[in-house]
């Protein structure tokens, strides 16, 4: 295969991937939302969207997310597996022994789901676009239902009732969950550690440098340790024992011992 052909193919793939990744993964409300967004890049009416092409776009997206070590929630991966399955059904000739729906049927349902989700999106937007009470039209500013007879009405709504019940029924069930805290670096731990470290911190150092070694690598552990260390640092700043700065938005947060302490 000539090199430039490969090159071209890679370019297309890279461009597609880049296109798919324009939007932040965090910004998606689940795999269906992602699919809907991807379908817009096909620039056709939703009814004419190629489900096969869409499945490919999605799979490229997921691959790319993996490559960039972006953590995808399980349902994104379930959808990827399902789309890979759908793709194979659409591409391979139907096996007459196969039970269950055809690839076309599955694709049609996915198209329906996308159309329905988009319809609900539009409906929600139209709903919010209506004249709203308290914004476009108003109720009486002052009410006049009054009288001498005072009646105390006890107010409680269904939510109060249900939550009260849930509170009672689950009050004991919360205890065992503390076992799950093994991947949580508590603020107490962080504070303990920081107190030991600030003596040496005469120069500005980044927050990350204060994380315990064993909590730096696993993303979940790192996140927890970062949050606690940050909270602990704030506490020490409040106590006047440390100083904290951030040169610019999103720049690393820096810490040092407060001079004279």
């Amino acid at each position, binding site marked *: 295969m000539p090199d430039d052909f490969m090159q071209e193919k890679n370019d297309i793939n890279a461009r597609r991937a880049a296109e798919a990744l324009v939007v932040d993964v965090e910004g998606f409300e689940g*795999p269906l939302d992602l699919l809907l967004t991807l379908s817009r890049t096909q620039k056709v009416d939703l009814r004419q969207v190629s489900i096969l092409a869409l499945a490919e776009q999605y799979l490229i997206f997921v691959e790319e997310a993996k490559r960039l070590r972006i953590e995808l929630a399980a349902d994104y991966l379930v959808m990827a597996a399902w789309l890979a399955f759908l793709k194979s059904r659409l591409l391979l000739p139907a096996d007459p022994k196969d039970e269950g729906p055809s690839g076309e049927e599955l694709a049609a349902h996915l198209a329906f789901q996308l159309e329905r989700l988009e319809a609900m999106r539009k409906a929600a937007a139209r709903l919010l676009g209506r004249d709203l009470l*308290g914004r476009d039209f*108003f109720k009486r500013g002052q009410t006049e239902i009054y009288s001498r007879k005072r009646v105390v009405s006890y107010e409680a709504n269904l939510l109060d009732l249900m939550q009260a019940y849930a509170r009672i029924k689950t009050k004991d069930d919360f205890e065992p969950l503390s076992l799950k805290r093994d991947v949580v670096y508590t603020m107490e731990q962080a504070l303990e550690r920081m107190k030991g470290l600030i003596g040496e911190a005469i120069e500005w150092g980044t927050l990350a440098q204060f994380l315990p070694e064993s909590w730096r690598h696993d993303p979940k552990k790192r996140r927890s340790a970062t949050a606690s260390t940050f909270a602990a640092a704030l506490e020490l700043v409040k106590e006047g024992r440390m100083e904290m700065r951030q040169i610019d938005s999103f720049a690393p947060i820096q810490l040092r011992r407060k001079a004279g302490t």
Partner: protein
Amino acid sequence: MMEDENIESLFEAPPMGEQERMVEALLFASAAPMSLTEIENRLPHGCNAREAIVHLGKRYEGRGVMLRRIGEAWAFRTAPDLGFLMQKEQVEQRKLSRAAIETLAIIAYHQPATRAEIEEIRGVSVSRGTLDMLIELGWVKLGRRKLTPGRPVTFIVTQIFLDHFGLETPADLPGVKELRASGLLDNRPPPETILPASDEAEENQNDMFE
């Protein structure tokens, strides 16, 4: 004049013009919409609130204040075209998350809607607190349980929802007829597949395939 009628009113309802005044005063006095029953409970015996409402509605046509139907109830509201005057009156509108507004729309258009149906449409689980918040706002309440296996709880929209969005009935939801005609409000179950038999799917099976 009123004095003369005092004795008679024990037996006869006041004339319609008078009933209209009464309904006008009642609805003006109350910030919350009042149902016909609530109005009639306050009117003298024998009054016809329904008819008085019709007269009253006509009288306020084109005025700065209008009589609006909200579900099974009635209330005066300022005319929407004058909203700009009241800007200072504005209550802080709680900014709804995208998940919340979509969940609300799905409940409104599909009601009664189960949690599984909402999740099926959005393709994502309903997060902790979303329904909670909609219920707290008074826009969503529990409907009857569905007569399907597992008898799941359903959610429906409330009168407060209708009032907030200026809707007379759920049938006035924008585009609802077109959506229904195009089948997008149908509860179409996914075709049976062999895949994916994940643990999660089993866990939720009761909810998913009702």
